[in-house]
């Protein structure tokens, strides 16, 4: 995807810490010497193109009441991975869903991430995923500790 100079300047500014102010986009406009409308249009355009996949707040799940977070890895048991992936992804409580390579001692290739309030809720979500997908072989890799969580820096 091509970016022109103004895109790049805008993307750089958008990554700065300006969102705890009443008028963050005006501040970005002032820094770049652009009009407010130009910045707002630019951001909407980046969202439409999918360059910005989400604009908003990221929470720390454990501090927002989601105490039981788990990556559940599935053995797709010879089934159509593309179909099963879509089924898993359609569950509202699955936040991430990918197919990844297997490796020695680890035949699981379908990865789903889920954030739950409790172990009971987690087990309920897993039961629903089993029912929806028909898969039976999985491992629950609960989060023990978050050691690092940051955002990448572009340009």
């Amino acid at each position, binding site marked *: 995807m091509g970016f022109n100079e103004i895109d790049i300047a805008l993307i750089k500014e958008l990554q700065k*810490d300006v969102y705890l102010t*009443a008028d963050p986009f005006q501040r970005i406009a002032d820094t770049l010497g652009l009009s407010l409308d130009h910045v707002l249009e630019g951001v909407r355009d980046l969202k439409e193109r999918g360059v910005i996949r989400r604009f908003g*707040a990221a929470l720390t799940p454990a501090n927002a009441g989601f105490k039981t977070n788990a990556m559940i890895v599935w053995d797709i048991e010879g089934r159509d991975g593309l179909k099963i*992936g879509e089924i898993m992804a359609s569950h509202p409580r699955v*936040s991430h869903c*990918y197919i990844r*390579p297997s490796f020695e001692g680890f035949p699981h290739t379908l990865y789903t991430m889920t954030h739950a309030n409790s172990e009971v809720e987690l087990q309920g979500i897993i039961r629903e995923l089993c029912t929806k997908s028909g898969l039976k072989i999985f*491992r629950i*890799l609960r989060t023990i500790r978050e050691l690092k969580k*940051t955002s990448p820096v572009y340009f």
Partner: protein
Amino acid sequence: MDAVDRDILNIIQSDFPISPEPYAEVGRKVGVSGDEALERVKKLLAGGVIRKVGPFFDAAKMGHKSTLCAVQTPDAKIGEIADIIATYPEITHNYLREGDPNLWFTVIAPSEERIAVILSEISQKGEVGPIHNLPAKKMFKVKVDLRIKGD
């Protein structure tokens, strides 16, 4: 966290208004002033409920490669390996999980070569391995939207 905080969080996770005064808009939706909405978000950030407010870019559309890596790390070495991992800005997430392998981290870098260099450095500096490099073959969903319900 009260009902207004929950309403604000449920709105700004996915729909932070791209408008001249975003908090005034959020405030109108939840029935408080823009100033109060902003103050509440500041408190939620200070309290660690919110980690960040801003844009989340699609790494691939930004021309970057991303991957998930896993490495089995003995308990006694977890702190050391976590410290090595922390020095790389390209590594954005690192979690200790149940099972073997137990350490799972994501790398986002301009090229696969750079990712390979990072993994080889961690392996050498930390004397751990093998590090399993597991780039997605297919991505179905990335949508973290934690709906917060009342008590």
